[in-house]
């Protein structure tokens, strides 16, 4: 697993990248919003549907047994990918990272947070890791505290000890989807645990791009989505420590999550099914497992290395070609950094930028990136965000720079 990534070979695995857009080759720079899919992921799902689909957990016949086997095998594959000590119990399939965090808020949160209790968030969080806590704070009259953002686009941890004092829960991203900043999560988690808090990691951005080990992160819960890591839409993951999951009340009620149901009550099933009410995303789990296998075959260190070298290239090219006309909201250099470039180009509005770039086949995301509090902190309503993944190469960065130049001419 050493040596550089063979991007040309990787690109061939992704059918969508053969697209032409407005007569140009597709330059997909929006993987932080959602990534593309290798053929092997699509094939795994098609094969599942065409040979073994059946509902899981309850079927005795061969088809259902095989569906069950593939679904549970996906759980093991995902668990291994993130270093889960007890994958069979601790990996819960949900619909997306957002549901994973909501589940923690609605179960652990409702069971353990009481009026006046403090929850610590950061100025970098995605709405998925904000709104569930805002909702719970309103319902339960909680105190919300905030780790601020430094001028270097990193978390300002000077005050951490004071902020942690008496805190019951810390919810923090492992990597900002706007700034690309990789947070010092393990240090925060250790301090939070010392202060007696439970720690939720929003891993939506880091799990697809960095080797992940829940033990090393030191989190109690980890949330992420398949669609940002080469997997399908419709499935995400909540990993939680078994003893915490055990003690939590269930989230949604329905089939599969019960041990018994009577007219006057029910008892919940064992882990992880207690948290998987209704028919789960079976084909999607199979697709996610195929995505995990694809990433593992390449190696996450190689994926990350590739992204950092592209990032360095982009930082250099953009500075050379645009100088002060272009601002990147994010740490300089490649330390504590993923391949996300949030751009402000002169005073061209990000929407207009993205529209003009699209004409050259270049896909970047314009908007607040579901991080409105962070946008307010940055003093802009929106940015144009280019984000990199294993299928991007230097020519994609060049295409971005060329298209930025056209936009400059248009909005002169």
């Amino acid at each position, binding site marked *: 697993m050493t040596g550089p990534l063979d991007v040309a070979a990787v690109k061939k695995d992704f059918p969508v990248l053969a697209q032409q857009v407005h007569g140009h080759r597709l330059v997909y720079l929006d993987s932080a919003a959602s990534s593309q899919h290798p053929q092997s992921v699509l094939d795994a799902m098609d094969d599942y549907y065409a040979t073994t689909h059946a509902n899981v957990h309850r079927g005795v016949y061969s088809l259902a047994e095989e569906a069950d086997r593939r679904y549970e095998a996906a759980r093991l594959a995902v668990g291994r990918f993130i270093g889960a000590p007890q994958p069979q119990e601790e990996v819960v399939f949900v619909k997306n990272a957002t549901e994973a965090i909501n589940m923690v808020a609605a179960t652990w949160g409702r069971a353990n947070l009481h009026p006046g209790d403090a929850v610590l968030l950061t100025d970098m969080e995605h709405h998925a890791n904000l709104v569930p806590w805002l909702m719970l704070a309103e319902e339960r009259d909680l105190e919300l505290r905030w780790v601020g953002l430094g001028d270097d686009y990193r978390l300002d941890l000077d005050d951490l000890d004071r902020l942690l004092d008496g805190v019951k829960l810390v919810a923090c991203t492992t990597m900002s989807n706007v700034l690309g900043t990789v947070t010092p999560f393990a240090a925060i988690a250790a301090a939070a645990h010392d202060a007696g808090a439970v720690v939720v990691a929003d891993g939506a951005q880091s799990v697809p791009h960095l080797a992940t080990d829940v033990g090393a992160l030191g989190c109690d819960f980890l949330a992420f989505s398949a669609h940002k890591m080469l997997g399908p839409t419709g499935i995400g993951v909540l990993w939680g420590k078994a003893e915490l999951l055990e003690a939590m009340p269930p989230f949604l009620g329905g089939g599969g999550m019960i041990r018994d149901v009577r007219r006057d009550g029910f008892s919940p099933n064992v882990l992880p099914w207690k948290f998987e009410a209704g028919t789960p995303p079976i084909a999607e789990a199979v697709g996610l497992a195929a995505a995990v296998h694809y990433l593992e075959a390449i190696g996450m260190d190689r994926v990350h290395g590739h992204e950092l070298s592209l990032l360095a290239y982009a930082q250099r090219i953009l500075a050379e070609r645009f100088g002060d006309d272009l601002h990147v909201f994010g740490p300089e250099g490649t330390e504590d950094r993923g391949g996300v470039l949030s751009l402000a180009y002169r005073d061209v509005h990000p*929407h207009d930028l993205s529209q003009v770039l699209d*004409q050259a086949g270049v896909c970047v995301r314009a908007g607040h990136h579901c991080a409105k509090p962070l946008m307010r902190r940055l003093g802009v309503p929106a940015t144009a965000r280019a984000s990199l993944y294993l299928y991007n190469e230097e020519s994609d960065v060049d295409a971005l720079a060329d298209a930025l130049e056209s936009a400059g001419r248009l909005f002169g």
Partner: protein
Amino acid sequence: MMTGLEDLYREIILDHYRSPRNRGELPEPPAHRTEGFNPLCGDEVVVYVLVDAGTVADIRIAGQGCSISQSSASLMSAAVKGKSVEQVRDLIRTFKSMMSIHEARLEEGDGEDGAPGEPVDLDSLGELAALQGVVKFPVRIKCATLSWNTLAQALDELETAGVS
């Protein structure tokens, strides 16, 4: 200019974007202030409207947004000033129907050849007709209609308050 974009970024639109008309605030009261958000992109518009004797006597626009939302707001402000509330409501209706994508098109169309839901008298829109190219870029429609929806809401609020 790159192909395709000329329908969106007509000269008149870029002009209103670069030199927005009626930009600023009005003292309230007597003016009425209403905020509008585009939740998808973060654009915000603030409409200050002064209604006097059933007429939009003055209007100012504040807030931030892209060339489409800003120019649409600017064009709107120029178009409604001095008109009766009733005329303004008609104009809002006409403008929004120019901007509406027919449901059938959303479901069956290829994203390029859609026609608006109802026939629209473009002549009655004057300069505003320059915005019709936006319909070809469905995501931008919300940019173009943001200020109009905000103005409509302002008029509704005034009506509820018994002012107009």
